[in-house]
């Protein structure tokens, strides 16, 4: 295979002993420590690791660029034989965009909302003197077609907000290709997308990179995605390289413990539900033909579902399917326009301010983004103490003791964490504090709204284990909102699949996740990447058969 690059040609990109330091609190910390990286023409290298592992910093360094507040301490970055460390700005400017391109995580944030897509496309090639404006426009249409964007002749004349997220990401990749670069850096290009959209973007990116024989660095924290995209994988941990190997070798036989633990994350399975003590016939919460609307726009129609005591109901669906709205209706933040909600056999008032305090206490919710769910000015003590004081009337020493008990329960050392502000906690620790806040109210029913989606996989697994343990110890009932089917497999008893504000399928987990499926469930299930380098090819093949193309 020529792709293995044993043809003796000089590498396209060669990074040796690179150290990059970042400044925080007036001190310089090394973010990337002594990393080597070699990339040959046409080769795709996957960079994986948790957040803070230095993936993006390393990716940007491949363009000779560092973010504000970072600097290259030591090492060399050679691109096509040319040293980039310490190179004059003019040299770098001529490389960037023309020979090295970059695709950012959020295309929606990376496009300038005030210009049409094609204007932004043409900027690069025209500036670099590769093409005239007219040629660039024709070229854009050709690349849009190659990226399988709908309406390639017209789509470039739209503004970024008029195009969907998946299409934007493809338009961004087309833009990166505009000067036919030798190297593209993809920084988590599909992380913000739904699984059903992700598969299309992945297929398009892979096709165009292969067709143009472009080398790429693909940064992601999703192992299954990197397995589809990369020829080789490099694992980073806190700025250091853990190991690097051919994709198939790496997936089949990871050498280091850290890599093995990353691989093992998706295997977490809960103990069978028989362990839960109460198996009650009457549901704790029941929604009967509930509909809701934002203004005149209907967002939920005819939702019927029941959550049994001590069990976990998972709601899955892509963004915009009404999952979170269902949670808001249950919590009384949005009034249902039709239908009734029953909690513990009694109808629930529509607005949360009309509910008695005892009911507010019994239902708690944990949010998706721990960053915004914690007041940045409240210390852990106040965050957890407030519900204790508010619902249970605890004061002084009893309150303090209970706060410490709760911190113990969520596996955070009380002495170290009780006086911290949210800014002094990591993402996973913040989410644990949010869980403690919900537990402080001694609830029966907890809604977990995408609680793990903002977290790294290892951290997310820790949160899932914690939630599972708490359920067994305290007999909690969960409603788990997620778009991640791995989470559903690991924690749910029952599953509800939503699409466009309706329930398309529901039932026990094993029935919903096993064939025969509803058509949409089938699409959803088959879109989740698997840890198998051939998965994407198989998916695309079955899809081609199905559409007869």
């Amino acid at each position: 295979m020529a792709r293995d690059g044993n043809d003796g040609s000089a590498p396209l990109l060669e990074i040796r002993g690179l150290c990059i330091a970042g400044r925080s609190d007036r001190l310089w910390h090394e973010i990337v420590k002594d990393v080597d990286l070699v990339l040959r023409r046409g080769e795709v290298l996957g960079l994986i690791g948790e957040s803070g592992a230095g993936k993006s910093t390393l990716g940007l360094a491949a363009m000779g660029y560092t973010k504000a507040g970072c600097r290259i301490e030591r090492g060399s970055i050679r691109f096509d034989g040319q040293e980039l460390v310490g190179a004059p700005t003019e040299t770098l400017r001529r490389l960037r965009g023309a020979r090295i391109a970059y695709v950012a995580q959020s295309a929606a944030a990376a496009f300038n909302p005030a210009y049409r897509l094609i204007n932004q496309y043409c900027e690069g090639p025209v500036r670099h003197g590769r093409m005239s404006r007219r040629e660039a426009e024709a070229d854009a249409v050709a690349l849009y077609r190659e990226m399988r964007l709908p309406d390639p002749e017209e789509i470039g004349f739209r503004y970024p907000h008029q195009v969907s997220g998946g299409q934007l990401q493809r338009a961004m990749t087309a833009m990166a290709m505009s000067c036919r670069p030798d190297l593209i850096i993809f920084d988590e290009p599909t992380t913000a997308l739904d699984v059903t959209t992700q598969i299309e973007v992945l297929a398009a990116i892979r096709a165009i990179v292969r067709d143009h024989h472009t080398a790429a660095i693909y940064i992601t924290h999703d192992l299954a995605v990197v397995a589809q995209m990369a020829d080789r994988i490099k694992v980073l941990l806190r700025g250091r390289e853990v190991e690097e190997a051919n994709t198939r070798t790496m997936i089949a036989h990871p050498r280091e413990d850290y890599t093995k633990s990353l691989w093992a994350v998706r295997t977490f399975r809960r103990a069978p539900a028989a362990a839960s003590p109460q198996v009650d016939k009457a549901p704790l919460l029941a929604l009967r033909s509930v509909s809701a609307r934002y203004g005149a726009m209907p967002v939920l129609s005819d939702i019927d579902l029941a959550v049994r005591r001590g069990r976990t109901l998972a709601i899955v669906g892509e963004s915009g399917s009404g999952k979170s709205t269902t949670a808001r209706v249950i919590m009384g933040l949005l009034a249902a326009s039709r239908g009734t909600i029953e909690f513990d056999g009694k109808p629930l008032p529509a607005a949360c301010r009309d509910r008695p305090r005892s009911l507010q206490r019994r239902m708690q919710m944990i949010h998706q983004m721990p960053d915004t769910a914690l007041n940045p000015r409240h210390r852990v003590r106040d965050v957890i103490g407030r519900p204790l004081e508010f619902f249970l009337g605890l004061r002084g020493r009893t309150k303090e003791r209970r706060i410490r008990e709760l911190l113990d329960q969520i596996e955070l050392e009380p002495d170290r964490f009780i006086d911290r502000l949210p800014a002094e906690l990591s993402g996973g620790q913040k989410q644990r504090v949010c869980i403690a806040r919900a537990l402080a109210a001694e609830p029966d029913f907890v809604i977990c709204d995408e609680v793990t989606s903002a977290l790294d996989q290892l951290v997310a697994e820790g949160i899932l284990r914690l939630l599972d343990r708490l359920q067994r110890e305290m007999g909690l009932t969960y409603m788990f909102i997620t778009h991640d089917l791995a989470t559903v497999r690991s924690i749910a008893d029952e599953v509800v699949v939503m699409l466009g504000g309706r329930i398309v399928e529901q039932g026990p987990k094993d029935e919903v996740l096993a064939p025969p499926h509803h058509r949409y469930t089938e699409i959803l299930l088959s879109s989740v990447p698997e840890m198998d380098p051939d998965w994407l090819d198989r998916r695309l093949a079955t899809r081609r058969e199905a559409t007869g193309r």
Partner: protein
Amino acid sequence: MTGWLARLREAPASAWIGILLILGYAGVAILAPLLAPFPETAIVGPQYHPWTAPHYLGTDALGRDVLSRLIWGARNTVGIALVTTALAFLIGTTMGFLAATVGGHVDAVSSRMVDVLMAIPSLIFALLILTITGTSILALILVIAVLDSTRVFRLSRAVAQGIIPLDYIEVARMRGEGLFWIIRREILPNAAAPLIAEFGLRFCFVFLFIAALSFLGLGLQPPTADWGSMVRESAKLIAFANFGSWQTATFGLAPLLPAGAVALLTVAVNLVVDWILTIASGLKE
């Protein structure tokens, strides 16, 4: 609190200059009875005494000691400006936070009322009201506080609107927390930094506004010493200034003394405000 002390230690020189100047002004205002060599309103010497002992900054048209009046003026002008700004903030932030948190009709009605108040040039509006009510200190404070609270309302409403959609407010609402708890404990701590910075700026404007009103004769009334009216009284002396000798030149410099006092305090407050804004914007963190 310790966080603020730590920041104070790291404050740049400009902020320190500002802080020291403000402390100096505050000291002078508080200790006016001890510092001033002569009484505020008594005629203690000949008219138009040049800058020599015992009247180091001369005397005015009635023979009152200018230095003493400057010192007493700090107490009157700065004190009233401080009370007025505090009152403006009390009204403005309360209404602004309420409008943002409750929303709906409360927001619509209060915002439109503020729009109406802001549509009228504030100096003309103040002149109009003060001609009707007469120029007591209380009327002055109330009128300026209400007029200025409209700006504070706008700012606090906008800041609160940025905070309210965040999840921690939703959590508090789901818990069933009362309106005032949400405003005081959840919103206020996060809105404090821009509001403190605005407080400094507003204070300067109020202060200049009072000086302007006094200059026009509708602010603090004689014989009370305040810097605005002192500028007006000494302004006509410029005509008599003779820059031939040092002694006669002091007449020309007389209006610059109260004006300079106003200017220096404004600069000092702005130096501190700049520093607080840097902290609030998170650039230093």
